[in-house]
Structure formats: structure tokens, C-alpha cells
């Protein structure tokens, strides 16, 4: 076959020479684009649909002049586009607006930014600890089970995880509370933290929420890692390596695990992403003062700016996790790396 190559423009040549960089750039660009679409959806859902937000905040029987004043404050008198750009412009610069609830509540108009700071730290801590435990545990257990596939311990764990992967977090959370707090009394049922303190000051409150989140994610991760390992251990190249006399330990790590890592990373990243939603419910179960609880309260109070801001924040983390996992996978799978 004669290959008549179309002449490659410069961009394509760059892509050919730096596939990883260009891939990263493309993914980040795509992530930003997606975030923008997300922001539009968030805006439409929160500002457009409920109608007059000012009236909703202030209630029905209210002085029209106060309504007007609030409208001007919240820029509700501008066009939709205008409102959107106003919000986006400020958001991107870090000005998250003012909490509408605080307009009614305390004297000072508390900025959403200040409102978010502490819960952000707490949620990050909770999620961080969970992920930090999830990764090694799922890899270890998955590999161990794969090497003992078919034996009784494997069947036992497989069957029990099959059930465990489905339990909702509020069920597991409640059961754990009942077991450890109510019955055994060793751990606190509610994760109360005093103002000004963060979760690290009383680590006991972290235990049950982390356990709950782990229960929801570990089961699936272990199953996937195990399945990936088993499939790889059955592959032709593992058999070829064994037939070539390559030592079993080397086969396990360099041949099997190495190639089973990519799908494992994928599922761990997926579960990390799931955590973004999972902490909402879990924090509510334990009253843990994090972003999840913040957004649920904000919704109940119709505090639109807070809802918008926390939603955008969580969406950003979600998308960022996706990009990071893609980059890790591209590193792990040489086939994707090299330009062809």
C-alpha cells in the first residue's frame, strides 16, 4: 500500500512528538469546558427556575421596597445573561458572593467564601483520609484475593462484597452508629466540633464517617482489583513468562500487577469521584460539619449563592479527579503514551 500522507500541520507534529503533554492539555481544556457547561446548568437550576429569589428569601408578606433593595443587591434586576456573567466573573476571581441566608440572619453580610473555608477543610480531611486508606487496602486485598482465587476465603469475600457494594451509606452509617455509639459507646454518634476547631482536634469523630465511606467504596474497589488481577494472571503473556522460567514474584508484580493497575486506578478514581456525592449523605448522617452538610442546609434555607458556590467547588473537584486519573492511566499504559 502506498501511504500518501496528508501534510501534517504544525499542531499535529507537536502532538506527534509530545503525546502526553498534548493529551494533558486537551483533557484540561475539556475539563474547563465541561465546568463551564456545569456552571450554566447550576445557574439555570438555581437562579432561573425558582423565580424571584428575593421574594423567596424574604418571604411573602414583605415590603416591596425591601424586595427591590434585595433585588438590586443580588443583581436580580439585570438580564439573565447579565446575572450569569456577574456571578461567573466574580466566582472565577474567588469572590463567591454573599450568603443570602446571612442577609437575614446575622448582622454582617457574611461572605460565602468565609462560610466555606472551615467546612472545606473538614470535608477535605474526611475524603483525604478515606482515599488514603482506600488505595492501599483495595490494592492489597484485591491482589491477595486474586492469588487465592477459588479458595474458600476468596468465595467468602466475593459473596459478602457482592452484598456490601449495594448498601446505601445512610444505612451503613446508621448501623455503625447504633453499634459503636449507642451499644458499645466507644465512639461519638455525632461529629460535633466547636467553632474555630477543626476535625483534627478530636479525631474520634472521624472514625465512624470514614468507616462508612470506606464500607461503600472498598467493596467495589476490591472486587475490581481482584477481577483485573485474575484476568491478567490468565493472560498469555503471564503464561509465557512462567514458561520462560521467570520467577513467580517477578511475574506477580512486573507482569500481572503492572498491567492490572490501570483498571484498578480507574475504579479507585471512580470511587473517589463518588465520594464527592457520598460525603453529602454521610456528613448528614453524622452531623459532620463539612461541605455536604453545608450545601444541604443551604438548600433548605434557599441560600442560593452558597448552593451555587459549593456546587461549583464540588464539581471542580469531581472533574479534576477525572483528569488526574486519566493522566495516571496514560502513564501506566505505554500503548496510550506513544504516538503511532
Amino acid at each position: 500500500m502506498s501511504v500518501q500522507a496528508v501534510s501534517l500541520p504544525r499542531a499535529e507534529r507537536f502532538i506527534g512528538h509530545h503525546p502526553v503533554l498534548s493529551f494533558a492539555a486537551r483533557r484540561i481544556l475539556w475539563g474547563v469546558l465541561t465546568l463551564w457547561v456545569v456552571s450554566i446548568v447550576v445557574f439555570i437550576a438555581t437562579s432561573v427556575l425558582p423565580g424571584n429569589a428575593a421574594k423567596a428569601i424574604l418571604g411573602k408578606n414583605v415590603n416591596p421596597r425591601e424586595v427591590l433593595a434585595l433585588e438590586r443587591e443580588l443583581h436580580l434586576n439585570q438580564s439573565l445573561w447579565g446575572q450569569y456573567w456577574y456571578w461567573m466573573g466574580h466566582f472565577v476571581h474567588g469572590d463567591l458572593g454573599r450568603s443570602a441566608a446571612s442577609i437575614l440572619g446575622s448582622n454582617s453580610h457574611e461572605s460565602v467564601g468565609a462560610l466555606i473555608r472551615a467546612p472545606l477543610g473538614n470535608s477535605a480531611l474526611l475524603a483525604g483520609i478515606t482515599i488514603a486508606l482506600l488505595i492501599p487496602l483495595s490494592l492489597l486485598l484485591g491482589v491477595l484475593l486474586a492469588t487465592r482465587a477459588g479458595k474458600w476465603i476468596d468465595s467468602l469475600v466475593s459473596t459478602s462484597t457482592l452484598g456490601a457494594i449495594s448498601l446505601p451509606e445512610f444505612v451503613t452509617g446508621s448501623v455503625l452508629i447504633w453499634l459503636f455509639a449507642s451499644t458499645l459507646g466507644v465512639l461519638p454518634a455525632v461529629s460535633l466540633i466547636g467553632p474555630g476547631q477543626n476535625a483534627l482536634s478530636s479525631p474520634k469523630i472521624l472514625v465512624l464517617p470514614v468507616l462508612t465511606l470506606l464500607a461503600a467504596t472498598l467493596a467495589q474497589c476490591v472486587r475490581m482489583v481482584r477481577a483485573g488481577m485474575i484476568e491478567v494472571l490468565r493472560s498469555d503473556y503471564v503464561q509465557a513468562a512462567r514458561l520462560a522460567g521467570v520467577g513467580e514474584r517477578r511475574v506477580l508484580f512486573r507482569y500481572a500487577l503492572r498491567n492490572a493497575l490501570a483498571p484498578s486506578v480507574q475504579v479507585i478514581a471512580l470511587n473517589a469521584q463518588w465520594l464527592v456525592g457520598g460525603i453529602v449523605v454521610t456528613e448528614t448522617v453524622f452531623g459532620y460539619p463539612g461541605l455536604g452538610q453545608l450545601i444541604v442546609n443551604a438548600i433548605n434555607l434557599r441560600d442560593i449563592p452558597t448552593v451555587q458556590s459549593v456546587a461549583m467547588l464540588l464539581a471542580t473537584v469531581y472533574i479534576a479527579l477525572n483528569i488526574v486519573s486519566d493522566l495516571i492511566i496514560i502513564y501506566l499504559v505505554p500503548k496510550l503514551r506513544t504516538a503511532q
Partner: protein
Amino acid sequence: MSAGERLLSVSGVTVSLTSGVPIIEGVDLAVGKGEILGLVGESGSGKSTLALAILGFSRPGATISKGEVVVGGQAMVGPPERELRGRRGRLVSYVPQDPQSSLNPGRRIVDQLHDRIRDRDKREWPRLVQAALERAQLPTSAEFLSRFPHQLSGGQQQRALIAMAIVGEPSLVVLDEPTTGLDVVTQAGLLSEITSLRASLEIGVVYVTHDVAAVASIADSIAVMYAGRIVEQGRAGDMLRRPHHPYTVGLLESVPDHARPVHLKGLPGVAVGVGEWPSGCAYAPRCPQADVDCLAALPPLEEVSAPNHLVRCIHWRQTPEPVYLGDSRVQTAGVAEPVLTVSGLRATYRSRRSVVVAAEDVSFSVAPGECLALVGESGSGKTTIARCIAGLHPPAAGAISLGDRPLAAEARSRSREARRRLQFIFQNPYESLNPRHRVEASIAAAAMVLRQLSREKARAEAVRALEEVRLPARVATRFPGELSGGERQRVAIARALVAEPDLLVCDEITSSLDVSVQAAILDLLDNLRKRHGLAMLFITHDLGVVASTANRVIVLDKGVICETGGIPDVLVNPSHSYTKLLLAAAPQLAPGTITVQSTSVPTG
């Protein structure tokens, strides 16, 4: 060969499934230093299992239940796994079948080479790696070594596997179907490398394959397997010249060889799979000279006239010599209007960012009742041309006409009549039938769509078509998953026949079938052509098949026609250099060992 000189000694080896069902039974083999043993068998013969057993290995679910394997004085059956692992790769090594999936996709070539010599002194590694790569005819540059397997071509991947097998300087190398999927020229290169390896390193080689011709060109001794047992073994020359087992005879009569254009008959019946062994001789149900005694007990291996020539048949003295019938193919006479005319065909496809030209300015025609072979290696464009003709691939330029009517580019836009007259048979019999439709439904669907028959009439036609392809009526209600590859391909042919076509386009339809099955299908097609006056466009890479089936041949290289002409003219007197290259590379059963009867069998 005395016991002391033996490199490999296999005695009484039986490998069975954990349920007790044997896969191979009572196998005895011996290979000496510098000797190449060809292990020949078709699907279900157990040859791959035996190859693994030589390394003391059995797949999960099976065990080596009996017998001994001794390589270079060391036992490979019995010692604990750890000891065996030490011997694999160093004493005896294995070259697996599928290069693409047998290389670790996440590890560089050099690292995979090093993995196999970890027990040697690190200072020796560069020297060993260099030597292995050179012998395998691969580049020794640092750039090549740092590549990942997907950055190598198919041929390079296979050679990389060979390099990995010899880097540990073993005494014995077992190759399992090393040339499957490789084109003829690469295959020829590989075969010569193996023989030179044997000469330079004095290693023993066990070459496992179904390709009798390949074995014939390099093996010193041959062992033929059928249904898990060795049915005949001996020196290559003796076996090829005068085989004594009916299966071996039938096999040799089925092997296509371009230097020996004969009518390929194939073997009656179906191959026997694991767990289906009859009592006594496993070949008896298909054997023309079987009698009651054959089924009573398993025949032992007996020595035949020549030394070391063993046969497992109680009637071996009566086994006739292979009869190679001169071809009886239909000769087309006269200049009738061609069934198919292709002029100036140009076919392209997009590959990532560039446009690849698969075929350029291809013109030919097929006369009614004629078999035209389209020959080329992979990448020659033959499949693309076939797909253009079938209406699956729109040509970039050129015209195709059926009779005097031009054909539209897409099959959907063609008239029903055109679609009926031109039938296409696909390469992979495991994918060309819808697994959820019964055989009858698949065939009847063609009749209903193309001849607009009612369901009942179409069903009746389907049954008739099954008869024509020599399949029993009970196949009609089966699902494709219950049929063998050869049976499925017959169903595909029946599906084509039921449309009452004028032209059959066959795209490598026998490439994935066993030799005996292939011969049977070719025989069937020959028969059908005679009966119905069918024209055929036969796409293949196998010159031997061309020699036995086609009237005319077109040789393609990189999308361009190199040569056209009649058979046997082009094969005997090629004019283009590429044709000469192909002919030289195609393996042959050694000339001079077989004589062809020139009398042709009456047609019909």
C-alpha cells in the same frame, strides 16, 4: 540414537483433565542434539498440550498424570515447581503461538529479555542479549531495545519471542505454531532462521504445527498426532515418501502445494475432540480400511520397514500410497461474456491522519464458470478489492459490473437481482453466522430476502442447500455454536447457494481451517461449480490452494496487479519478480518425494 545422546526423551506421557478425561495419551518421543522434530496435528490432536508437557507444564484444569519427560538428563515431570521453573528458559524454552498477546505490553523488550537471564551474572547480560537478537535477526540498537511490544511489527514480535527463547542458551527449543498469521515471505525467513539456529547452536528443536509443508522443509523427523496419540513417526524423508497410517496418507493428499497441483480431497467425517475418543483406534470411524478389529483395542505402535518408523495401525501393510490425482478442474472454453468486470478500480481508506491507497488501477474480469484467484500477502489489497465488489467498501474510482449492468457502490443501492447473483463468503466461520439464529433461519433469510420466497418455500430451499453442501439434515435446527469451523463454513456456502448466484466471491474462506477440512471444502466448491456452472473469485494468500483450484490467477502487491495468467503457467513460468519471490518462499513438500499421476479423473 542411543539414550545418552538424547536431548529430549518423552515416555508414556498422558495429560488429562482433572475430571480424568485424557487429552493426550501414552506419548513417546525422542529428539537428539541438533535435530528438528516436526510435531504435526490438526485441531483437537493435542499437539499444543504435548508441547507444554515437554516443559513439565499443563494448563489450569489439566495435569500430567502419567509418564516421564527428561531433557538433557533432567526430569521435567515430578520435581517441585520451583525446580522446574529453574529449568524452563535455561534448559528448555518455549516460543508461544500468538506473539501479540504473549509479550508483556507494559514492559520494554530489553527488560523482558533480562527477565529470562536473571540467574546469570549481570556482566554477561549485554553479551547474551546481543547474541540472541542477532540470531533472531533483530536490530541490536538501544532504541529498539527500549521499545514496547506494540511498537514492533508482527514479524518482529515473533522474532522477539524467539530471541527471548534462546537468550538463556537452552539446549532444546519448543516452537508452537510460530508462523500462524505471518505472511509467506516472513514465514520462509523464520524457517530458515530456525534451521540456522540448529546449525549454529546445536540445539534440539520441536516444531509444533498443522502446516505439513512447513515441517517438510525443515524437519529431520516427523511425528503425526491424531486424537491425543501419536499415530505415526519416523524420519521426515521416509514419512513423506511412504506414509503407512491412513490419516497421514489422507493428510498428505490434502496439503496444497503449488509445485504439485493436484485435486485435494480431504478426509471424510469430523475430527474427534477431547472426551469423544471411541474405543480402539480413534481414527477408525473415518478410516477407509477400518474393520471390527480396529475398534476392539487400541493398536500399539509397530515398527515398519524403515528403522525408527513407527505406525499405530494394525492394517498398515495394506495402507495404499498417497494418490495424487491430477487436477480435474473445470476448464472454461471460449469467450463468453464475463460475469464480472472490474475496471480501473481504486480503493482507499483513512488511517488516523493519512489516506492509504489499498488498490490502484485494478482491472480484471471473471468468465462464467471460471475460478479466478486473487493472490497476495496481507496488505496487498485483495480483501479491500473483494469488499468493493461485494458493496461493503465504496471505491474511490473505477467501475464494477455484473454481466453488462454496472454495480452501485453500496450493496444497499444495488438491485435485488444484482445482490442475488453475487454472493460473498467471509473468512471467519465463527463470525459469519448470527449466533442467535438457527442454521435453517440463517439460510432461509437469504432466500426470503433475495428471492422473495415465502417462509415455507425458503425453509425447503434451506434443507436442499444443506444437502448440497453435504451436511446432514439435523444440522438445520442447530445453532452455529454447536458446529465446527468446517461445518459453519459449509453453512455459509449453503446460504450463498440458496440465492442461486452466478458468482461466488470467497474471501480467504479456508485460511482458518485445518488442512483436511480445507481440502474437503475446496473439493465441495469444485463439485458445486461443476454442477451449477458457478464462477468464483477466490481470494487467498496460499499459492498451493491456487494451484489446485484456480483456472487463472492475479498476483497483487501493495494494491497493484503484478501479473495475471493461467494456471499452471504463472506458477511454472512466473514473469514478475514478486511472483517469483512468493513462489520461492512458499513451503513445499520436498520435490522428488512424491509422484503425481497425470491421468485426470473424469468430471462429475
